[in-house]
């Protein structure tokens, strides 16, 4: 959590956003049937589906306004000017590029790429190995310069995958090369591991951490995944190359 003074300044803005959000809820709720007929039922205001959203929207708006009032009372209107001044200054740029914010970008990029790009298109085990390898190595090495380099490499990989999927290459390649997307992911994992190795090979302490990252990244999905897939009978989000191999082993053996 931020310091109190900064919190109050942030409250002016969060209060404003919350106030607008409440207004938006009310505007959407007003489009719902209040006294008209819906599904053969003649509405009255107290049974209307708009009643509760209107109440919630009004309360959110009111509380947002109260928050702004408290914030202004605490730090004064002048603080808004200071915040706008800060937003226009080079300080903002410095803040956005601060190490902790870069770490934040790295975490969010990793999660967003895993959820929105990979999980619905690539074998769960492969995309989990990629996610864990990148995630653990970025943070376990404890070096912000290394993190930046690895993040940049990973971003290039994301760009390649976005291009690959948006052009529609998986459908084109699938007849000639089964599990084409999975092979590409495997290639990316190997490329990432090789790149990371070249970055840390001169540091013995990091080499040990690299090995730990690699072992954990590979073993964890193979510990978690089979529990869900074979014991709880939960199909994986995407079943591709690795799941096909595991299925062959599992059903051959059992």
């Amino acid at each position: 959590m931020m310091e109190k003074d900064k919190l109050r300044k942030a409250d002016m803005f969060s209060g404003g956003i919350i106030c607008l959000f409440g207004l938006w809820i009310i505007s959407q709720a007003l489009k719902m049937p209040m006294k008209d007929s819906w599904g053969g039922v003649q509405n009255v205001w107290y049974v209307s589906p708009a009643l509760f959203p209107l109440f919630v929207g009004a309360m959110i708006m009111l509380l947002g306004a109260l928050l702004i009032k408290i914030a202004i009372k605490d730090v004064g209107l002048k603080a808004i000017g200071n915040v706008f001044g800060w937003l226009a200054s080079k300080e903002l740029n410095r803040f956005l590029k601060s190490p902790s914010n870069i770490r934040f970008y790295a975490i969010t990029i990793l999660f967003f790429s895993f959820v929105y790009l990979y999980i619905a298109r690539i074998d769960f085990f492969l995309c989990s190995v990629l996610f864990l390898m990148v995630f653990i190595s970025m943070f376990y090495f404890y070096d912000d310069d290394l993190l930046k380099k690895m993040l940049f490499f990973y971003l290039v990989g994301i760009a390649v995958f976005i291009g690959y999927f948006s052009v529609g290459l998986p459908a084109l390649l699938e007849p000639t090369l089964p599990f084409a997307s999975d092979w590409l992911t495997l290639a990316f994992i190997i490329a990432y591991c090789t790149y990371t190795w070249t970055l840390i090979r001169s540091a013995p302490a990091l080499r040990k951490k690299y090995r730990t990252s690699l072992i954990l990244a590979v073993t964890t999905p193979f510990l978690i995944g089979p529990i869900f897939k074979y014991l709880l009978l939960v199909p994986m989000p995407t079943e591709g190359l690795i799941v096909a191999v595991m299925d062959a082993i599992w059903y051959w053996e059992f």
Partner: protein
Amino acid sequence: MMIFDRIWSFFQIMFHLASDPLNMAILFGSVILGIIFGAMPGLTSTLGVALLTALTYGMDTSLAMICLLAIYVGGTYGGSYSSILINIPGTAAAAATALDGYPLACKGEGGRAIGLTTTASAIGTAISIIFVVSISPLISYFALQFTSFEFFLLAFFGILISGTLTSPDLVIKGWIAGFLGLFLACVGRDLLQFYPRFTFGIPELEGGVEVVPVLIGAFGIPQIIQVLKDRFQIGEAQKLQRIMPEIGTVIRNIPAIIRSALIGVGIGAVPGIGEDIAGWVSYGTAKNTSKHPETFGKGEIQGVLASETANNACVGGAQIPLLNLGIPGSPPAAMLLGALMLHGVTPGPMITFEHPTFISEVAAILLLASIAMWVSGMLLAKQVVKVLRIPTQIFMPIIGVLCIIGSYSLGLSIFNLYLMLPVGIVAYFLTEMGYPIAPLVIGVILGPMADENLRRALMVSQGSFMPVFTRPVSLILFLIIVWTIISQFRFYRRFKTKLMDLILRRKSCETVFDEDTVDK
């Protein structure tokens, strides 16, 4: 007679559960997992319950409850390890424990402190079970008299009180978080007319926002971001010596343990307030009632016992509103509510009719879990402490994968993940700006109850709010809500101070007058 029947049935259920080796294996496994989750700074019992819910999906209800309640009990207790040994609370519930636990560990009494907290935590849970078994029928009986207005007011009160007491900054922020949760609960087709609200034509939203992905996102993602972004590092753990508690110390502190357990049960029974508040209130009470308050904060064993007994007693207390009213008493209980619904058990006043032995079963599981916790704590404490050496940078990404697979597996829907992640990111920003997350989650859970009951109540009264003032329970709830709101404003505090001054002045005048009369 009825009470004896219930106690007899409680012990029968307990022995029946304990006689199955699978139940016991799951119980001990979950308790140990809970202790590890609680001990690891950055992981909480709520997250543990949330992640395990996905694994219990295929189990029968009884086994699932053993699993979830055991991790809840173990997780709440496990927080004391890191509080005592490294001065970093493993969970918010153990924050007060660190104040005296770490100084004790520095004096070389870490093992003693852990041994005593383990025993006190087990006693705390056991005392709370007495209340779960004895009070539940009474609450159920009263709840059966509730009409829609009462249920609406109760849900509203739950959100308000949770917002009031859990907010780390302004109370208003807790309320905003609660209303944001209520908004999320509005998404989907409404329960009375099936009108699509805030669905934007997305078919996956028609059924509403799934509770479990929201819970996992709201509790898991911010935790991962905070720990990794701020480069959180675990310090060197203090060494553990003898863990077996001295019986004499426990007996000497029995009154304090009972008092702390009662505080824990009471706070747990209030909707939406967690173990952390119970720990702090109990610690504060112990300090205020102590003959030597100056020793608190310097390694006072009573301080450690107070907070740990209360936070574990809160587990049982939180089951009382959860089982009888369908209102979770704490964030992990909110998660339990989601899990119960997945298993086809709808908590509320009807639970004693639909599942007559369910409350006794929960109480029996809690007692078994507290025994398992004590045994595991005594035998495995030295091993569990080793997990504190694992760097957070390693286990947080693994937790990330668990959050993702857990959210997905509950509905086998990738859309759950598309929902979980934005909720998690928004929850992170809200946390950073001092908004509590518990009221948001309570809002998502209680939203449908509040919405449906408000409209149903108004339908019965033809749009009149008069029953709120004519029905005694409604009126009491309404007055409590009004008091909860206005007590937060400055004008109320000013008015209260003036009133108190006036009363005190009158009293002193009367005393002076009396003295004058006596003199004459």
